[in-house]
C-alpha cells in the first residue's frame, strides 16, 4: 500500500500551518530582515559607487532588487543545515517512519517545504515591500519574469530542502553529523550569494560556487525574478536549478534506501 | 534576637496572570486569599488538582513571582526583597526542573553547589557523605546526571536541595513518576531528616500516600483558594472519602454485595476480582477482609487510597 499524492499534499498543508503558529517570531524576524537589508544596502551601494555606478551587470536598481529579494527568500530557503528529520535519524526514531507506507524522504521534504512556503508570506512579501518603499528597486514590467521567477523560487526552495535532506541522511553513517551541519551552514549562505551577489565573486570563486547547488537556491531565483538577466539566461538558470533538484533528490533517495538497509542490519 | 516562629506566613496571598486567549486578554486567578502559617519543624502537605495554584504559591515563597495581592514571609524574609539571604535557608526541589548539571557526574554538581552555598571544606565533606549514605547514591555518584534513572535523579535532587542544611525544604511533586521502591526510600529519608535536623517540610503532591507518610497537616487548595486546612484524618472525615479493598478470589463468584460496612463497586473477570469501598472512619480494611473471607476464599488483596482528585471533588461539592 503506497500513500497517495493527497497524503503528501496534506503533509504540505500541515507544514504550512505549522509555520503560522508563531506570529510574534515572524514579526521579530521581519525586523531582523529589514536591519540586514539596510546594512547590505549601505555597503553594496557604496561598492557600486566606488566602481562607477555599475559592476558586473548590477546597477543600483538591480542591486536593491537583489538585496530585498534575497532577504525575502531568506526565511524560506534552508541555509542552516538543520532539519527535524536529522534528529529522528540520529536517535533512531526514523525506524518508525520507515514502517509507515510513506516515502521517508518525500514525507519529510513535504513537511519542511510546507512551512518554508508559508514563510514567504510574513517574510517574503514584507521584505520586498520595505525595499520598494524605503529604497526603491528595479523590477520587471512584463509578466513573464514574474511567472518564471515564481517557478524559480519554488525550485530554489525545494532544492534547499532536498539538499539539506542529504545532510540529514548522512547521520545514518556519521556519528557526529554536526560537522556536516556546520559546514553546510557556513558554506551555503556564502555560496548562495546571501551577502554578496555571486556575479561579483572573483572568477575562480564563481566557478567554485557553480559547482555546488547553493547558487541555485538563492542567487538564481533572485536573478530571474528581478529580471536582471534576459529571458534566455533565465531559462538557462531555471534549467540548472531543475538539474540540481533532480540530482539531489535522486541522491537523497539512494541514501535513504541505503540508510534503511543499514538500520535493518544494525537491528534498529 | 529571637527567631521568628513561623517559617512560612502568608496573609491574603493572591496572584493573577494575564493570559492571551486568542485575540483577547483575560485574567486568570491562580492563587487567591491564601492565609496560612507553617511553624518550625512542621510537615505540611499542599494538595490540590493540577492547575490549582500550587506551583504558583511555591514560586511566590521563593521570590520567583511577585504577589498580586497580600503578603508572604518565608523564614521571616520578604522573598522578593531578600531573596539571596532567604535562599540560604531554603531548599527547593522542582519536580520537572533540575538543579543539577546535566552533562556532569553527580559529585561534580555537588561540589559546585557546595561552592555556591559557601560551605566550608569540612562541612561539605560531612554533609555530602551523610547524604550519599542515607540516600544510597554511592552507586551512581560518578555517573553523569543525564544517564540516571528518574528515581536516582530525584534522590540526587533532594540531596542537592538539602546540601546546605536549610531550615525549610519545599518539594514540588517529588515522587511523580517514581516506582514504589524509590518513593518509599525518599519518604523514609525525609522522615529521618526531619527527625534529625528538625527541618520544616512543605510538600506539594498528587499522591495521598506521600501525604499520609510524611505530613502532619494538609492544605487543600481548589482553584487557588484554600478549601481545607487541618489533619489528613480530619480531611477524610470531612469528606467521607472511601478507601477501596480489592480482593482476588480463588474462584469466580457472585458479587459481594452483602458485606457489612462496605459498598460493592464492581467485579472483573466474572467475579474473580471484586472492588469494595468502605469508610475508613466506620470500619477497617481488616474487618472488611474478614467479612469477605466468610463468603469466599481470598487469594490476594490490595487497598487503594482515595485519590486527590476524588477528595478535592468531594471537598468542593461539600462546600457548595
Amino acid at each position: 500500500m503506497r500513500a497517495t499524492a493527497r497524503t503528501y499534499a496534506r503533509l504540505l498543508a500541515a507544514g504550512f500551518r505549522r509555520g503560522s503558529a508563531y506570529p510574534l517570531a515572524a514579526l521579530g524576524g521581519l525586523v531582523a530582515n529589514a536591519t540586514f537589508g539596510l546594512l547590505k544596502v549601505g555597503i553594496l551601494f557604496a561598492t557600486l559607487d566606488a566602481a562607477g555606478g555599475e559592476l558586473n551587470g548590477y546597477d543600483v536598481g538591480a542591486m536593491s532588487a537583489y538585496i530585498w529579494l534575497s532577504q525575502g527568500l531568506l526565511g524560506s530557503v534552508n541555509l542552516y543545515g538543520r532539519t527535524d528529520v536529522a534528529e529522528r535519524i540520529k536517535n533512531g526514531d526514523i525506524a518508525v517512519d520507515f514502517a509507515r507506507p510513506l516515502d521517508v524522504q518525500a514525507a519529510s521534504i513535504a513537511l519542511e517545504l510546507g512551512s518554508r512556503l508559508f514563510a514567504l508570506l510574513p517574510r517574503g512579501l514584507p521584505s520586498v515591500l520595505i525595499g520598494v518603499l524605503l529604497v526603491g528597486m528595479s523590477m520587471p514590467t512584463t509578466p513573464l519574469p514574474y511567472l518564471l521567477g515564481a517557478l524559480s523560487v519554488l525550485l530554489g526552495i525545494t532544492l534547499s530542502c532536498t539538499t539539506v535532506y542529504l545532510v540529514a541522511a548522512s547521520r545514518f553513517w556519521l556519528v557526529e553529523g554536526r560537522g556536516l551541519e556546520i559546514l553546510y551552514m557556513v558554506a551555503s549562505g556564502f555560496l548562495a550569494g546571501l551577502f554578496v551577489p555571486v556575479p561579483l565573486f572573483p572568477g575562480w570563486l564563481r566557478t567554485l560556487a557553480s559547482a555546488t547547488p547553493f547558487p541555485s537556491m538563492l542567487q538564481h531565483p533572485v536573478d530571474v525574478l528581478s529580471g536582471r538577466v534576459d529571458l534566455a539566461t533565465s531559462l538557462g538558470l531555471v534549467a540548472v536549478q531543475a538539474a540540481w533538484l533532480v540530482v539531489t533528490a535522486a541522491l537523497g533517495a539512494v541514501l535513504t534506501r541505503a540508510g534503511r538497509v543499514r538500520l535493518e542490519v544494525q537491528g534498529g | 534576637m529571637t527567631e521568628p516562629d513561623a517559617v512560612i506566613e502568608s496573609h491574603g496571598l493572591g496572584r493573577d496572570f494575564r493570559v492571551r486567549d486568542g485575540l483577547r486578554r483575560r485574567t486568570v486567578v491562580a492563587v487567591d486569599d491564601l492565609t496560612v502559617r507553617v511553624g518550625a519543624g512542621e510537615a505540611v502537605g499542599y494538595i490540590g488538582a493540577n492547575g490549582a495554584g500550587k506551583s504558583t504559591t511555591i514560586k511566590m515563597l521563593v521570590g520567583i513571582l511577585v504577589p498580586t495581592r497580600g503578603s508572604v514571609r518565608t523564614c521571616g524574609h520578604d522573598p522578593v526583597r531578600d531573596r539571596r539571604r532567604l535562599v540560604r535557608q531554603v531548599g527547593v526541589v522542582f519536580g520537572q526542573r533540575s538543579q543539577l548539571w546535566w552533562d556532569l557526574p553527580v559529585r561534580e554538581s555537588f561540589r559546585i553547589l557546595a561552592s555556591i552555598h559557601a560551605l566550608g571544606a569540612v562541612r561539605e565533606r560531612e554533609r555530602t557523605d551523610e547524604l550519599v549514605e542515607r540516600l544510597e547514591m554511592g552507586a551512581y555518584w560518578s555517573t553523569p546526571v543525564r544517564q540516571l534513572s528518574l528515581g536516582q535523579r530525584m534522590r540526587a535532587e533532594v540531596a542537592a536541595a538539602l546540601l546546605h542544611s536549610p531550615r525549610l525544604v519545599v518539594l514540588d511533586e517529588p515522587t511523580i513518576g517514581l516506582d514504589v521502591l524509590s518513593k518509599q526510600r525518599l519518604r523514609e529519608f525525609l522522615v529521618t531528616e526531619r527527625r534529625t535536623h528538625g527541618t520544616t517540610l512543605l510538600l506539594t503532591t498528587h499522591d495521598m500516600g506521600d501525604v499520609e507518610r510524611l505530613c502532619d497537616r494538609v492544605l487543600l487548595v481548589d482553584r487557588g483558594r484554600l478549601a481545607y486546612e487541618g489533619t489528613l484524618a480530619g480531611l477524610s472525615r470531612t469528606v467521607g472519602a472511601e478507601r477501596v479493598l480489592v480482593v482476588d478470589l480463588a474462584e469466580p463468584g457472585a458479587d459481594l454485595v452483602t458485606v457489612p460496612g462496605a459498598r460493592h463497586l464492581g467485579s472483573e473477570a466474572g467475579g474473580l476480582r471484586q472492588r469494595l469501598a468502605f469508610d475508613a472512619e466506620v470500619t477497617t480494611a481488616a474487618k472488611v477482609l474478614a467479612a469477605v473471607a466468610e463468603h469466599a476464599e481470598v487469594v490476594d488483596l490490595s487497598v487503594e487510597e482515595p485519590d486527590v482528585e476524588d477528595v478535592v471533588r468531594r471537598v468542593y461539592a461539600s462546600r457548595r
Partner: protein
Amino acid sequence: MRGTLAARTAPYRAVLASRVRAQRSYRASFRMDLLGSLLVGLVELAEVWVLFHGVGRIGGLDLGQVLLVFGLADVAYSVADLLVGHCDGLAGFVRRGTFDVFYLRPQPLLLQLVTSDISLRRLARAAVGIAALVTGLVVNDVALTPVAVGLLALALVSGVAVSSAMFVLAAGVQFFVVDGAELTNAFVYGGRYASTQPASVWSRPVKAAFVFLFPVAFTGYLPVVTLLGLPGTDWLPAWLGWCAPLAAVWAWGLALLSWRVGVRHYQGGGG
C-alpha cells in the same frame, strides 16, 4: 558576610571551570566545533574581502584598512561571544525552566546567567580576527607609538564591552518577547555584521542605530579611522574613535536597564 575576592568569586569560578572541563572532555565534537568556528570566521572575512577585491576603495577604506577594521571588530566580538554568547538564549532558558533555578541560589541573577557558560570554541574564530588584526597593522605600517597602542587597547577593551552588552541586552529584551528571539538577532548579529563595515557608507538612520544606539561602530571602524588618521565623514568626526569607552558605558547602561525591566516583568512585579 564579605569574604576575600577569591571566596566571593568561588561559586562563579566553580561553574565556569566545570563548563570548561565538560567541553574539553568531548574531544571529537569539540574539535568539530573549533573547526566550524574557524570556518565561520574565514567566511566572514571572505565576505568583506570579496567586495574590496573587486573595487579599490569603499567608504574611504581600501582592503588593507578594512582588514584592520575587521580584525579589531571581530576579535572583540569573538571574545564577547566566548564569554557571554549564551545569554541571547535566555528565551530558551525561561521556556525550559532553567532560569528559575537561578532564583534558588544566593547570587545575583544576571551574574549567574553570565557565568553559567563559556564557549571555548570561539577561540578559533578569534584566531581569524587576530590574524586579520596583525596583518592589518603590518600592511598599514602602523607605528606602535604609545598613543597608538593606547588607542588599540582602549578600542579592544571597549569593543569587548560593547559586543558583550549586546548579548545581555538581548537577554533583557527576551523576557518580553519570549517567542521573538529573532528580534534580538537584529542587533546582536546585525550588529556583528555592521561592525566590520565602514560606517561611512550607512544612511543616517542606520548610523543612528549602529553608531549611537547599538554602538558597534566603535568596536572597529571608528578607532581605525582615528588610528590611521583618516578623514572624518558625515556625523563621524575623525577623533570619535577615542570615545569608545563612552560607547561601552552607554551600551552596558542600556543592557542593565533592559535586564532590570525584563526581570521585573518576568516576576510580574509592577503590574
